[in-house]
């Protein structure tokens, strides 16, 4: 559904009432709505900061340099996404294809990093069930990871469609829409990375 939804009316409404294309307006509304999903999850995380009664605590498991690198990878994918859109707007399908694939690969690298991070945390004894930190951390970052995965799926769909001649300069907006979603997911990560990883929790109760 990321790629094709035709408007009901072609002739009379070539120009929309607001001047914004239907799909773009819909995407903005969806992203605004999605903000509240993340808002509720981040609020939950913030509410339960320092609420864990047993470890491991954030300071015990976080590897800030490692996560910084994977965050950098995700943010870099916003650049490749912009390049993909610029290419298709010029009508350069070949370049667009390369940048779409690059974006998807960077996204997958981030996801791989998250899988590795989750695995190592579990080895250090932090699971969903361990404490409030595990509960709120995994659900928040996992929810974001799911968003990234859906984005990767859309990027790969665009990438494959481009071989069938379905991605052209005329419908560059399809790429733009996926781009909007992708940038949104990146921006949310900036907030999550700051709130979850960078702001110290302080000494947990009972920790020496």
């Amino acid at each position, binding site marked *: 559904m990321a790629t*094709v939804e035709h408007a*009901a009316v072609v002739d009379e409404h070539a120009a929309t*009432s607001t001047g914004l294309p*239907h799909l773009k307006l*819909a995407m903005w509304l969806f992203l605004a709505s999605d903000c509240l999903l993340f*808002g509720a999850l981040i609020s*939950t995380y913030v509410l339960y900061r320092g609420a*864990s009664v047993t470890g491991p605590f954030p300071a015990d498991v976080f590897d800030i340099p490692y996560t910084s690198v994977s965050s950098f990878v995700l943010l870099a994918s916003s650049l490749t996404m912009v390049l993909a859109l610029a290419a298709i707007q010029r009508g350069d399908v070949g370049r667009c294809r390369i940048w779409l694939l690059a974006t998807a690969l960077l996204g997958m690298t981030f996801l791989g990093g998250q899988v590795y991070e989750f695995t190592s945390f579990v080895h250090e004894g932090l699971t969903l069930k361990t404490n409030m930190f595990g*509960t709120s951390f995994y659900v928040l970052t996992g929810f974001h990871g799911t968003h990234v995965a859906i984005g990767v799926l859309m990027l790969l769909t665009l990438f494959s469609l481009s071989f069938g001649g379905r991605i052209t300069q005329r419908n560059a907006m399809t790429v733009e829409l996926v781009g909007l979603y992708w940038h949104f997911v990146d921006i949310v990560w900036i907030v999550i990375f700051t709130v979850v990883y960078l702001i110290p929790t302080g000494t947990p109760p009972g920790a020496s």
Partner: protein
Amino acid sequence: MTVPTQRPTGLLSRPRATSGFWAWITTVDHKKIGILYGITAFGFFLIGGTEALLIRLQLARPDQALVNAEQYNELFTMHGITMIFLVVMPLSAAFFNYLLPLMIGARDVVFPRLNAFSYWAFLFAGLFIYSSWFLGGAPNGGWFGYAPNSVVDPTRGMTFYAIGLLIAGIASTVSAINLAVTILNMRAPGMTLFRMPVFVWMGLVVQLLLAFSLPVITIGLVELLFDRLFGTHFFDVAAGGSPVLWQHLFWLFGHPEVYILILPAMGIVSEILPVFARKPLFGYQFVVFSGIAIGFIGFGVWAHHMFAVGLGPVPNTAFAVSTMIIAIPTGVKIFNWLGTMWNGDIRFTTPMLFAVGFIAMFVIGGLSGVTHAVVPSDYQQTDTYYIVAHFHYVLFGGAIFGLFGGMYFWWPKVFGRMLNEGVGKVNFWLMLIGFNMTFGPMHILGLQGMPRRIQTYPASLGLAFWNMVATIGAFIIAVSVLVFLVNAIASFRRPREMEADPWDARTLEWATSSPPPEHNFDEIPVVHSLDDLWHRKYAETEGGRVVPVAAGGSGEEAPAAGPDAEHAQSHGDGHDGAHTGGHHGGHAIHMPSPSYFPIVAALGFPFIGYGLIFAIPPVIVLGFAITLAGFFGWALEPSAE
């Protein structure tokens, strides 16, 4: 928009049926989808009503045990979930789907297949929740699902609740975005925002409320689901969690939800009153702005549901004040409606009776609502039948009365046949009397201290009399609903020969035939003013007297005199070719083709749900595969054949 219409590159050809079973399954026509929403919601209304009758039978006399406490919990929980999520919301969605495109002069909603997807997802959500009765017990923790009770309950009921509402939430969010973009982007030429009918305005506010409140409950439900299925501790006090978080997430959705339920009815009433008072809506801008204000303030009052939780005097005071403030825009609307009727040439048709009934009942519910805004008073009322009385006065006396009025009003437009007026009036009076007999005494019971959600009560409390009255009232309501059903069924025995504008109405949906052709309008109307249709029919003399405009009079719009001329004007040509498209400018009207994929995409959700509940991973994977296949088929199917 990405697939050129000439290139059928899809996986499957698009369905072609235009009538019969498959036409309904694959339809993307907003009118058919509206009817599907309406019928489904009415079916759930009968089920939810039956649950209410069982509750009333159980409470008719003291110390009864028709149902045991566990069954009673399931009954009141399912009654609440049904009436809110499966009746009032989808019945409002039925009106929005059917009417919004017609009222703004559009041929369909902006994303017709997404619209069909929303309906199927809603239907599957309803069936999914109801399947819980047969799969180990229905939800039993109240429609509000308070943690930690909803987490620790040993039955599967609250898991069905969480997953069912998540699916319904997806349906509503998608539909909200679809309808909001439709209103913003698909208006006919000249239909500026402040020429939109109030019902369209309320539609826009409701869609935005849905888009911004549903995500919050979604997260609450996800957390509840994780607590129940995967052992997380979101609402687990022993691990450091907080059950109050659930209440915040729930009511941060739950209070906007109240306006999601009532604003559509307010919009309907704002359309009915001017037609039958033969006057423009008094203070259109005030009604619109107060609707918007209600939408905004509605996000800032949620903790008035939590006064007794112990948030402290400062939050309680703040939310008490915001709650009293929201009564102001609501009161503004009441006065506007009264002003609309004032000095009007009133015709007391059935829709008008329901609209006036709405105002009276809603005022009672609104006033009792203000009494809960006073914190010390709320401490006395909370969890008593006084609250039950209050919210039934706004949700039944308000929303349901408004929706019934809407059904009587738009029935001829939708089905091309009138509902019988005499029977309709019997329907109204029975419902009004039954309603007040049921819920009026609950104020007294509540003030006498009768608690909500308790299966029975001892005779010594002296509550028996008013409970019996309430039970008799509930059965009178049931009779009134049966009267409606008879009226509805009987209407289909009459021939379909309705004129376009039987009520001499004001808005664009009455400018096209009844029922409208698939493409709604042969020519997209050009709008020159608020109540455009009215101004095409009538002019005002210098003395302020309303006179019909002569047929074929001056003006580019060729204003028509009265409904018949209007009908003739709209359908002078292209009428017979309605389904193949009118022939204007030498090209057929392009309408979106039906599609199999909306129902396929929605069908995956219940599989995911059952897989999660019964812990069968292959079923979960199958569900995701079905939904994904639906979306990919959707994306790749040819845009038309």
